[in-house]
């Protein structure tokens, strides 16, 4: 088909998409350099002694440019595709060459404005050749582009192993340091040393990881697993499902063990956010109330636990953690009722702004001189005991116990949310979300119902705060940042509104990954922005959107007719989507 098109639209026009990809690739490359991603990541090797993460980010851009250009090449012939890849890659590289020429050749002091246009960056771009090496990015871009185009033109049986292999190397290169450190104290230490450098993979490790990735692509099950699963008889399907659930539960349970306290800390934080995300899923996902002051209830929960359990200066009772938690939840809930009553008559965007204000007020009050005598002001509350008192050698020491506690709480919250969702209350929340006026005319008491959603969301945020206090052992007003609220909202939106599995995925992507790659913390919000924009463009319903609950329960003879009518409706819906 492509060939037929090519004969008609020859000349420059046919190359337009290719050139466009080249230009986009060039801009992306330039951006990566000038916001400092390339120089910062250059300090971290992907494969030790061979390639740094910064270089890899540029090469990957070139590879992607070439690959995409090849798919839009004016003809499906391999030669044309490779030419397209080379052209796009080279065009992208020329942007960087221009940067070198302007910065080094003409001596324009770009650093006055663009802090990251440093000599080190030019060294990276020209492989240390200085201004006479300005051609390096063009050639490298063209080479990468044509290699990617060549890969794209190969049959799937060869292409997929290559792509999978490279993906495996990049992913493992990122995680190598995290995997190596904890395994050094275990019997597999020699293997870890062989595969992983202190940061990044060793050369041998890279080869092995590539081979494993490629092998996995070759050996991957031929049939799509889901279709295979559907083909199984009912009884077997149940067995497979149960085995899958068991495997998942087991993975979740052993996750923090054996990977060191840093990793345990990260998964504990993710679990706390999952717990709060479940709560937010009621307020935002079900009832549609955009609450940007979630952190207020988080703070109430944290401070309640802090005050009741601390053995330090501001501790009131010195209770065990577990005894304080119910009070933290109740206080957060009461506080939500107190805040909610006046503001829940406000609709939509205004509600978001009002709640945003409350979140900030709580943070500032907590750190103020006014309440210093009770809440410790900026010094905060210290010496909050761990929830479960164990010796330092126990496997429950440190963040691991917090992980399990947060997990248990998250399960409870998910259960509550699930039960409510299918109840009269869940339906009235959804009705309010969809059309407030009609919901009211249908008999739903707006204030009462919204307040309940707000209070339950607040209760779960308070629970999150209580667990958080147990994790860090001290509470400061400065921990109660607006970012806590934004994080919770963002992970619900990215995961899929109203979907609990979505919350888990959202928390891993938006909280877990940035925590794991602390050294790139500077770019956390860049990553957020890109992720959110990409989500809104390509998957506005979220990564794992909630499914429609099926409840009419067709009788067998109706099923067929229904399936037909569903197809009839699905078609116009699909064409509408395409039209947008």
């Amino acid at each position: 088909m492509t060939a037929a098109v090519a004969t008609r639209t020859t000349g420059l026009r046919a190359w337009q998409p290719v050139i466009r990809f080249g230009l986009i690739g060039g801009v992306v490359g330039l951006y990566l350099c000038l916001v400092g991603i390339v120089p910062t990541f250059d300090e971290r090797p992907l494969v030790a002694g061979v390639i740094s993460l910064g270089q890899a980010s540029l090469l990957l851009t070139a590879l992607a440019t070439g690959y995409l250009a090849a798919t839009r090449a004016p003809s499906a012939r391999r030669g044309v595709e490779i030419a397209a890849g080379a052209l796009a890659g080279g065009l992208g590289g020329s942007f960087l060459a221009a940067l070198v020429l302007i910065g080094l050749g003409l001596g324009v002091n770009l650093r006055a404005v663009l802090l990251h246009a440093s000599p080190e960056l030019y060294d990276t771009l020209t492989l240390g050749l200085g201004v006479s090496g300005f051609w390096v990015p063009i050639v490298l871009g063209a080479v990468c582009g044509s290699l990617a185009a060549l890969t794209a033109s190969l049959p799937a049986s060869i292409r997929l192993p290559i792509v999978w292999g490279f993906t495996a190397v990049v992913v493992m290169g990122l995680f190598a340091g995290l995997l190596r450190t904890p395994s050094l104290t275990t019997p597999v230490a020699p293997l870890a040393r062989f595969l992983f450098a202190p940061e990044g993979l060793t050369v041998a490790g890279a080869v092995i990881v590539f081979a494993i990735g490629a092998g996995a692509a070759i050996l991957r099950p031929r049939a799509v697993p889901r279709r295979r699963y559907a083909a199984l008889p009912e009884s077997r399907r149940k067995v497979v499902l149960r085995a899958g659930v068991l495997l998942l539960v087991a993975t979740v349970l052993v996750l923090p063990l054996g990977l060191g306290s840093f990793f345990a800390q990260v998964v504990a934080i993710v679990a706390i956010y999952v717990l709060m995300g479940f709560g937010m899923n009621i307020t935002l996902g079900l009832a549609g109330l955009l609450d940007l002051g979630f952190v207020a209830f988080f703070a109430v929960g944290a401070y309640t636990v802090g005050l009741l359990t601390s053995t330090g200066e501001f501790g009131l009772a010195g209770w065990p953690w577990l005894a304080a938690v119910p009070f933290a939840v109740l206080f957060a809930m009461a506080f939500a009722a107190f805040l909610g009553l006046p503001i829940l008559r406000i609709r939509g965007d205004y509600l978001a702004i009002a709640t945003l204000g409350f979140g900030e007020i709580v943070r500032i009050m907590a750190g103020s001189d006014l309440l210093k005598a009770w809440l410790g002001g900026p010094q905060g509350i210290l010496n909050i005991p761990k929830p479960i008192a164990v010796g330092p050698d126990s496997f429950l020491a440190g963040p691991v116990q917090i992980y399990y506690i947060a997990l248990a709480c998250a399960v409870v919250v998910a259960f509550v949310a699930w039960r409510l969702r299918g109840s009269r209350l869940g339906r009235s929340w959804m009705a309010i979300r969809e059309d407030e006026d009609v919901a009211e005319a249908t008999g739903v008491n707006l204030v009462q119902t919204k307040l309940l959603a707000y209070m339950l969301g607040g209760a779960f945020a308070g629970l999150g705060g209580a667990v958080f206090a147990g994790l860090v052992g001290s509470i400061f007003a400065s921990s109660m940042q607006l970012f806590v609220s934004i994080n919770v909202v963002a992970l619900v939106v990215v995961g899929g509104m109203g979907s609990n599995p979505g919350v888990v995925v959202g928390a891993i992507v938006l909280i877990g990954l940035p925590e794991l790659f602390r050294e790139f913390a500077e770019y956390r919000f860049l990553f957020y922005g890109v992720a959110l924009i990409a989500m809104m463009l390509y998957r506005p319903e979220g990564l794992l959107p909630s499914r429609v609950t099926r409840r009419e329960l067709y009788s067998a003879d109706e099923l067929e007719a229904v399936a037909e009518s569903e197809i009839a409706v699905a078609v116009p819906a699909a064409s509408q989507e395409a039209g947008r």
Partner: protein
Amino acid sequence: MTAILEASGVTKRFGGLVAVGNLDFEMEHGSIASVIGPNGAGKTTFFNCISGFFHIDEGRITFEGDEIHRLRPDQISHLGISRTYQNTRLFPTMTALENILVGEHQHLRATWLGAVVGTRRQRDEEVRALEEARRLLTFVGLRGQGDMLAAKLPYGDQRRLEVARALAGRPRLLLLDEPTAGMNPSETLAMTEFIRRLRGELGMSILLIEHEMRVVMGISDRITVLDYGLKIAEGTPREIQGDPRVIEAYLGRSASVDVSAAGPAGPDPASPSPGAA
């Protein structure tokens, strides 16, 4: 017969505009009444006053003897008034069945704690609610479509689903805002039959706003004509047809032919020829 709905001296102003002016209205238990009038005559405003969306500036509205004009929409709904909307307003991303279940809201008693714990009472109630919703789905002819998202239903089905949602509140008075708007003649006929069934089988009182004269003249016991917010005529279909003020204000312009074609109103008029509309 006693009045189920009574309005006296109802006035609703928007700034300087009198949308409804000093309106007296009365309808009997178990009757079908219609409000007609040109566009902008204040018909839907009157509906919104009854269902509590608007607070009236003067006058009073009573339902079965109770004053309702100071109540909130949800309280009015609890008393036994349900309504549909001129432009269908379903809960679009909920399934058809869930839409009906929301309509049953006021008859369910489960608390949030009961729902979380899953008390026996709550579970029984859910089972019954679901049964009732399926029954209503069948009643309006949407059996088999219950798990479809409301937004994905065809237009006619959406209107019927809206009626089902209103019926789920087990109202004694049903307000239908242009139930046949945008329907073709055969759909219109089906809807007319359906409205008649509602009164006949469920003993409901029905108040409708309608533009389609064939429907109005065919099923109404009483007709009220509004123009510029004022009541200009009231009576049986036959009286309205002959009223010169009505013909002048409204029917005279385009619909008078339709009216004469519809023939005398009776409990069961011979099915009008579908092509005339």
